[in-house]
């Protein structure tokens, strides 16, 4: 009740300010207001979402959608753009958290199953979608293409449509404080799929360049891939090792140090053309698997640091959902979303059977693979820039699809985690730590 009153109060303050005072001409003058509003109101709405058995993340997204430029306009378009100031930090933090949760010794027995599920689901979905897109190309709202150009464009578009979101899946896991077979499996599968996606996308992009003589493929695909993947992992590992030394030797202000690590990764990785998620993941993996810290300092730091960053990240994502893209390309997007959902479901079932995992949680793995978010949008932006004749239309489609999947994905995955009984398992497994946190 008190929280509902506080939420209404914060909404009233924001509405009053927006109504009574004109927005400053400099968009950066509204960043702090938008961030504070998003942090408070999205968190409170997330709590309300949890009460009706929706994931908290959906509450944050809904907050962004409702208060964003298309509905209440309490967060205007420039404010929504400014809110994305946390995107790099959030992506890095989410991937570091994923690395910290990935204990390779614990995962080793499942390695074959993870490889099978990721490979079959990703490649199967990609194959089906690419064929359907190639066949339906003349009827899709894209400029006409023929021959090898159409094949390459269909594969690139198929890779984008098929992609999974490690960001959202890991964020759901972190936020639900889940642990168990399904959590471990989905986390490993989405991360491996992300690696696969980068390889497939780079190859498809190169194929599109060769076939259509569009874009400038000056650097060999092999060298580019090696730089992007090996370089990302090496950079992340070095930074992670330095962080591990800090936690072990100094061990003070770990929350600030963790946020500093993520800010460093988010700032440096794109400038060196590294894949941010891979670098951050490698940093987390090194800390967890090579130099795990003693005590709870890092776990508490993650808990303190991750919550506000996740709230703002998903509230900003909700506010930036382009509903007009969905209106323009709605029927095509819905049809493709349904086809993708079916593919992930069927391929997921098939892969689990091939991997020989008969237990029930594993059969729900597909539910953790439906989300799409920032990585896909980033790749779509690259396509739009490289292939001006058809890339912009593909980007609009991907924006609409991402909007659908970012809303549906967390709900599906949280349902799966709840059915598997893994939500809140971290707190149950570590009651002493939880008690300590509550003191």
């Amino acid at each position: 009740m008190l929280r509902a009153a506080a939420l209404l109060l914060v909404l009233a303050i924001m509405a009053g300010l927006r109504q009574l005072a004109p927005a400053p001409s400099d968009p950066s003058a509204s960043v702090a207001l938008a961030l504070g509003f998003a942090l408070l109101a999205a968190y409170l709405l997330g709590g309300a979402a949890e009460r009706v058995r929706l994931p908290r993340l959906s509450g944050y997204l809904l907050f962004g959608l409702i208060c964003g430029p298309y509905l209440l306009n309490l967060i205007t378009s420039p404010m929504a753009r400014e809110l994305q100031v946390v995107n790099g930090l959030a992506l890095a933090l989410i991937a570091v958290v994923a690395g910290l949760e990935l204990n390779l010794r614990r995962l080793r027995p499942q390695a074959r199953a993870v490889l099978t599920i990721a490979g079959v689901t990703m490649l199967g979905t990609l194959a089906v979608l690419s064929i359907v897109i190639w066949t339906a190309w003349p009827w899709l709202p894209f400029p006409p293409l023929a021959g090898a150009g159409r094949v390459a464009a269909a594969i690139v578009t198929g890779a984008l449509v098929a992609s999974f979101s490690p960001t959202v899946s890991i964020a759901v896991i972190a936020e639900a404080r889940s642990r168990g077979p399904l959590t471990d499996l989905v986390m490993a599968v989405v991360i491996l799929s992300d690696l696969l996606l980068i390889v497939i996308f780079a190859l498809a992009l190169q194929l599109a360049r060769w076939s259509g003589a569009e874009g400038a493929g000056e650097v060999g695909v092999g060298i580019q891939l090696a730089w992007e993947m090996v370089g990302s992992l090496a950079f992340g590992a070095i930074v992670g090792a330095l962080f591990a030394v800090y936690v072990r030797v100094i061990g003070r202000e770990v929350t600030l140090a963790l946020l500093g690590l993520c800010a460093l990764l988010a700032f440096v990785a794109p400038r060196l053309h590294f894949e941010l998620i891979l670098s951050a993941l490698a940093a987390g993996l090194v800390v967890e698997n090579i130099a795990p810290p003693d005590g709870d300092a890092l776990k508490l730091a993650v808990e303190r640091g991750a919550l506000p960053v996740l709230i703002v990240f998903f509230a900003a994502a909700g506010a930036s959902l382009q509903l007009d893209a969905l209106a323009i390309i709605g029927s095509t997007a819905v049809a493709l979303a349904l086809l993708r959902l079916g593919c992930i479901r069927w391929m997921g079932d098939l892969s689990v059977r091939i991997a020989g995992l008969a237990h029930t949680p594993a059969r729900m793995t597909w539910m953790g693979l439906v989300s799409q978010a920032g990585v896909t949008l980033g790749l779509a932006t690259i396509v739009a820039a490289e292939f001006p004749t058809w890339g912009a239309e593909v980007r609009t489609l991907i924006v609409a699809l991402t909007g659908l999947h970012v809303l549906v994905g967390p709900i599906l995955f949280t349902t799966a985690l709840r059915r598997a009984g893994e939500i809140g398992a971290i707190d149950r497994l570590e009651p002493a730590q939880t008690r300590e946190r509550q003191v």
Partner: protein
Amino acid sequence: MGAERPTAVLVRRHPVFGVDATPLPSILWILLGIALGPMGLGLLSPAALRHLDLVVTLCLALLGVLVGLGLARHPPRDPLRTAIAATVEAALSIAAVAGVLAWLLATWDLPLPMPRPSFVVLVAICAAASAAMTDRDGDDALRGAAQLANVGDLPLVLAGTIALAMLGREAILSRLLMTAAAAIGVGFAGSLLFERASPAERGVFLGGAILLLGGIGRYLATSGLLAGFVAAMFWVRMPGVADRIASDDLRRFQHPLVMLLLVIGGATLVPTVPVIWVAAALVLLRLTAKLLAGAAVARLIRAPVARVASLLVPPGTLGIAIALNARQILDGAGTVLVGVIVLTVVASELAALALAHEREPAS
């Protein structure tokens, strides 16, 4: 008693109410900012400084809250007498500096990026901030001077906010009232949330509240200092422990944020001819004004005249905060103001060091 070792003067600096002494003197953070900024290594480029605008907004609200909480939670022994003395001291300092500086600027005819009266008033307000040392074992004069400097932050927050609001868009009074009303709203929302929250949730609520308070000031082109101060006073007046929670939790962020504020201040320094001339004059004017104003009010707080006056010489973080606040509203024009204040703070720190050095043999 009574003798502050020169190094201790720098180390035990206490910028505003409720803020613990920083582990390193403020001058070092300013010099670090100058070294990292466009004048030095260029790591803090103008683009990077634009991104750090959010940190300034956050710091302003945080300082406002800390001033409010400090005023209410650690009142001076004789509140009315100290409040009168602090207000008189601040007013005398501002009037003396503004009057002479206005005459000097009219004589020199230096090119300024903003109207001369506004510039003079803002410079005088920023320069009036003091940061007397705190020393819980110190003598009465030291404690009296510290309380005077601390309570003196309140008239500076108010005067600074009004001056900044006058620089901004039209409808000055309504913007100031909206700032106060919205801050009360945020304070009320905070008091509903803080007490029943887990530690992780408290971080979200407190962080959100501070961002909102800073954001209100920035959005309305007034000041996060005022918004933070009003919300803090609300938390203190409301039943419950919202003020204690805010005070305890904000302590974790105060040092990093205040250090960042000083680093940003240092990095913003662009030493043009007008900046150097005005800063040189201001150092002398400020020193004289502080000594005179301190001497004038020393009797009110029943402390030795000479000691109180000299103890008020060290400059406060609040001056840099108000200057950076003005830069947010004025954009490029405010850079001159920040430069003047940064140079003045550095020189005044050194002057305070020299004064403390002078006092040491006497003890």
